[in-house]
């Protein structure tokens, strides 16, 4: 009876040890994968930030306005051409 008790106890402890070890491995591995992914995401984020910087420069905005043929009215040319002049992009 006592022997059976001891064997059962030993088996329980051994199972607990193995399970903890397995969980420990799995969690650490997952952490490692997450940290790697975190670094990749940060890298991607920084790259996107710079890409947005490129897209919001005055040159880029003007280029896209031209490409999209937006009817933007420039207030300045109508001024320098005199009171009768129409804005450059005004519809007839």
């Amino acid at each position: 009876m006592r022997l059976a008790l001891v064997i059962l106890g030993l088996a329980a402890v051994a199972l607990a040890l193995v399970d903890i070890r397995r969980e420990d491995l799995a969690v650490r591995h997952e952490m490692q994968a997450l940290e790697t992914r975190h670094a990749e995401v940060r890298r991607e984020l920084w790259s996107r930030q710079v890409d947005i910087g490129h897209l919001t420069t005055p040159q880029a905005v003007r280029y896209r306005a031209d490409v999209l043929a937006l009817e933007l009215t420039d207030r300045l040319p109508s001024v320098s051409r005199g009171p009768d002049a129409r804005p450059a992009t005004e519809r007839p």
Partner: protein
Amino acid sequence: MSVRFGRHDLIFVVLLAAMGFLGVRLVQMVQACEVPPDPQHADVAERIARASLGSTIVVPLPGRPGDIYARGRSSHVLMAGSRQVPSCFIDPSLLNETQLAELSRQLSGMLGVDPGELYVDLLARRERGSRFAWVKRQVTDAQADAVRELDNRAVGIQYEWRRDYPLGSLAGPVLGFTNDENVPGGGVHLAVFRAIQARQGRRVVLGDAGRRPIWGVGEQSEAPVDGCDVYLTIDVNVQETLQKAVSEAVTKYDAQWGTGVVINPWTGDVLAMASAPTFDPNNFGDTPPQAMLNRAIATPYEPGSALKPIFAAAAVERGVLSWQSRLDGENGVYHAHRGGRISDHGRRYGLITLWKAVVKSSNIVMAKVGEMLGNRQLFEIAHAWGFGRRTRIGLPGESPGILRDLDEWDGYSLRRVPFGQEISVTALQMVMAFGAIANGGTLMQPRLMTRITDPRGRELWACEPTAVRRVLSSGVAAQIRECLADVVERGTGRRARMDRWTAWGKTGTAQIAGRGGYVDGAYTGTWVGGAPKNRPAAVCLISIYWPDRHKGYYGGVVAAPYVKRVLETTLTYLHVMPDRP
């Protein structure tokens, strides 16, 4: 009564002891999994590593260098940012000659490097015992993936920082650059290097025999600290207008260089600062050093007549003269006693008022103003207005200009400093002085950086507008603005006249000094002025150095039309109400 221990009892005790040991070990392992992030427990991870797997890898964790932002129409615009790019490296010591040759062949196909050169280089490094060599830096993501697919433990990919400048050459000399080794090269980068610099972190990883990472050891790892972000007063839209104007003027008049500055006279904010030729910090390696110079702060030059309003206003402020005081223009040529010959370059004036002398830009009358003020007062005025000392804008390489010590001044200085000879100024000093005229007489300290924030956006440092000193009363400042508006309407600056705003300003056409005197046909053409007249919102200066004299060299020709364009665009952009009917 004696106690008898049987064989089974002994086995039971031994097994009980074993169970106790395993229980203790279980507790230890649970504790080891819950090590708090405390330095005194840092060796626990090392012990785990040694006990279990025996291999640790230190992986650097990159901290991002801070960004530099300019103002935009409704938000901030990125001037300098950073991104990580992959680079391919190799450990030649892990390979024999045959493997090295094969790997060189494979890598050359992927990365576009010469296989022979790569092999010879790697072989030499291997023989020297080197364990690290770059195969190719800054490769594409596709190339990096191809290298990873090789699955060769001797070859790896490491990420490096590359600074990116979305605005290109728009403000190159102001920004400076950072090279591949993260060393700053002038401009704002050098000025705030400590703030934008990041602190790299590290992650300690347990690896297998093939150095493949298995898990991280948090206790020995350090988080990276990103650099701080810097916000400038430069407005990208104004900067673009100014840069275009200066570059166009330099090209059109075939000048050696040109510079321009736009400021808000009330705060001293530098809205734009341009130099031509300029450079693109993205390609700093291909740039001649001269193109990297921020001419607005680094290169002093004689301002010529643009300095006249300052001494005229100072003479009125000190009560030496009034605007209506009449002085003799000597009919165009003045032979001063121990002062040499001074001419008005073909224009002949008799008795004219100080007001008209400024409008018509008479050298002779300004020489006489100098005689009335005397060397000491002239020196004090120049010094008070910020000439001969750095403006403290906070950029490296700023020149104080050239204002000689008073004891070196003679009869020539007395008559020439008032019309901008024998004194050299920077464009920034000049525009700040005119800023004082614009804001009612207070010389402001130029402000280029407004704040520095940490990566979470918390403000670490802020710069408020700073007044240096009062140099004019508001009344005299208004009078000199009125006089300078006359320069635009009736004087040498007609090409700066705007349709919607009343402009004011002054031309300067200064001869360029060489060895042993002024160089024949070499001039600096300047226009500096602001608008509107009563409450100026912006002051702009453009100087064009050594234009082709056959194409034009007067400040009113080579600079005034461009200042007009910059001011018109800037005032429209800033929604300044027109003041002209």
